[in-house]
């Protein structure tokens, strides 16, 4: 059966990003114990794969690169209906930028799902927001890629008609054969997890692999394999007046006009 691979990234739950802070001494990001969730767009990517499974009997494999404690997060993907999951997790993989991440995920796919027909990614991860990993995985695997995918039609399960949303235009593409697709939220509505799924997920294979398991070139992974560096992090500077005006509508309107006049805006 053809196989779809879905790249799923565990990220700190965006609902709690207000808890992020910078260590004043080291300038290092403190995550403040924020719980981990699946990057929301990756569920849309998974939904595509699950529909290929439902309609054409495809197999669905989830791959991820993340710290070992995120296995629970990946169980959710299994509970949604994926068949198996592989997590690349190793200290040597830490500090990876998109190039090293894509190289590692491509290595994991070569090892564990070499006969994939389709690789599905979210168009962007909410925390990193680079939109870079999917095209870079495609490069390392030597297959074409389509990003900003807002629609996929799989008529016979062999030829796919894919819409790439360019904002000012749409490109409609047709493709057969292995490809990487990065999807937007317009593409579908991901299914919810049910109790049957959760029970089934407990029995599905979820394998954690180290860098050594994947035959990777050590100079291309983790921090060593990352051409970019974070020179420093900072919180955006706030240098605003922050003058608050309260009162009845007429009063505040008058007051606002006065203040705007004072600063030369009216």
């Amino acid at each position: 059966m053809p196989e779809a691979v879905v790249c799923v990234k565990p990220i700190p739950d965006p609902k709690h990003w207000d808890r992020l802070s910078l260590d004043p001494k080291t300038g290092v990001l403190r995550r403040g114990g924020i719980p981990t969730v699946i990057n929301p767009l990756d569920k849309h990517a998974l939904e595509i794969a699950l529909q290929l499974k439902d309609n054409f009997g495809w197999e669905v494999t989830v791959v991820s690169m993340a710290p070992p404690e995120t296995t629970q997060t990946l169980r959710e993907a299994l509970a949604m209906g994926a068949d198996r999951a592989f997590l690349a997790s190793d200290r040597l993989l830490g500090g990876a930028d998109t190039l090293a991440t894509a190289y590692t995920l491509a290595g994991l796919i070569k090892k564990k799902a070499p006969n994939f027909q389709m690789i599905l990614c979210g168009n962007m991860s909410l925390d990193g927001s680079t939109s870079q990993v999917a095209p870079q995985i495609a490069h390392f695997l030597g297959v074409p890629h389509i990003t900003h995918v807002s629609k996929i039609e799989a008529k016979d399960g062999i030829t796919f008609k894919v819409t790439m949303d360019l904002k000012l235009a749409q490109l409609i593409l047709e493709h057969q054969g292995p490809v990487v697709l990065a999807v937007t939220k317009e593409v579908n509505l991901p299914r919810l997890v049910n109790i049957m799924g959760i029970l089934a997920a407990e029995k599905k294979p979820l394998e954690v692999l180290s860098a050594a398991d994947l035959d990777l070139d050590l100079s291309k992974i983790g921090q060593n394999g990352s051409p970019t560096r974070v020179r420093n992090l900072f919180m955006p500077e706030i240098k605003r007046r922050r003058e608050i005006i309260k009162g009845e509508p007429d009063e505040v309107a008058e007051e606002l006009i006065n203040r705007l006049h004072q600063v030369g805006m009216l």
Partner: protein
Amino acid sequence: MGDYRGFWVFIEQLQGRVSDVGLELLGKARELADATNTYVGALLLGDFSKAKAKELISYGADKVYLFSHEKLATYHSLAYTKLVCQAVTQEKPEALFIGATPLGANLAPRVAAQLETGLSAHCVDLRLGEDGILEQIVPGFGGTMMAVIICPEKRPQMATVMPGVFPKPEPQDRQGEVISMAVEITEKDLVPRVVEFKAKEQKTVALDGASVVVCGGYGMGSKENWQLLEELARLLGGAVGATRPAVDEGWAPEEVMIGQSGKIVHPKLYIGAGVSGIMHHVVGVQDSEIIVVINKDPNAPFFQVCDFGVVGDATQVLPAFIGKLKERQKRACDFLSIETPQMNEGPYSPDSKGDSQ
């Protein structure tokens, strides 16, 4: 670094129409090149004549590398990647900037991977560090955090840059050269096959370059209330923007969405009504000279980053504000003994009643 010289810009075009972001980046590249005594290169792929390519010189390019071929009129990621990499490998620029548009975000990562160099995404600023290394400013976690990204050892240093963060330069009378590059592409470079290109109607967005932006959020509550924003914008000679939820509600077209995934604006005056001030939106307005916020929730995060914050119901404050502005305008006109001007319909209010008299 050694052999690598010049700041390059990939000039995005869709079916022959050059996007502004490429020109904006030429302006920035010009500035960086002047500061370091090097040249600006423009990379143009499409079905273009040399004369057309020459126009890029007036926007700041010293050398325009032109890949002209009818097959390149439409974007194909593999063909574009191959040719961009070919030019870079041959000419060795120290930096390559690409617009952070869907097309740019499709192309840049693959080019960077093939060149085995670094790429930073969605930059909101570029500057040179004291050591001459390019500092790329990137918002993270939806803008709650900013990161300065560098690529110390690999060349070119690559960045995708948000449209609208740099001003589009005025065309000038300048000298430069257009270099025709050989285009070798095969059928393999043209997969996946493009079967259709559907242009969406391109409306001129009054938001670009507007000196006043009136922006509505989900708190505006309805399409009817939205008319208040249209009216205020007309009165102030500005344009109307929207947050994502307001666009999702259908109160405003997607083209006027402001923020990380929409437009970056830098007006003199920004007025946000019924907008909570989540960083995704705020990153798009933080360069405004004055920020006014109208929100009924005194704890709305936007009050932390505004100049004047009005705590109140926008559906009451806006009519009062509009009424008083009209009075002022009328007084000024009476004083000058001229007629109070008739208001024009804004470009985005096809169904507004035009009841602003």
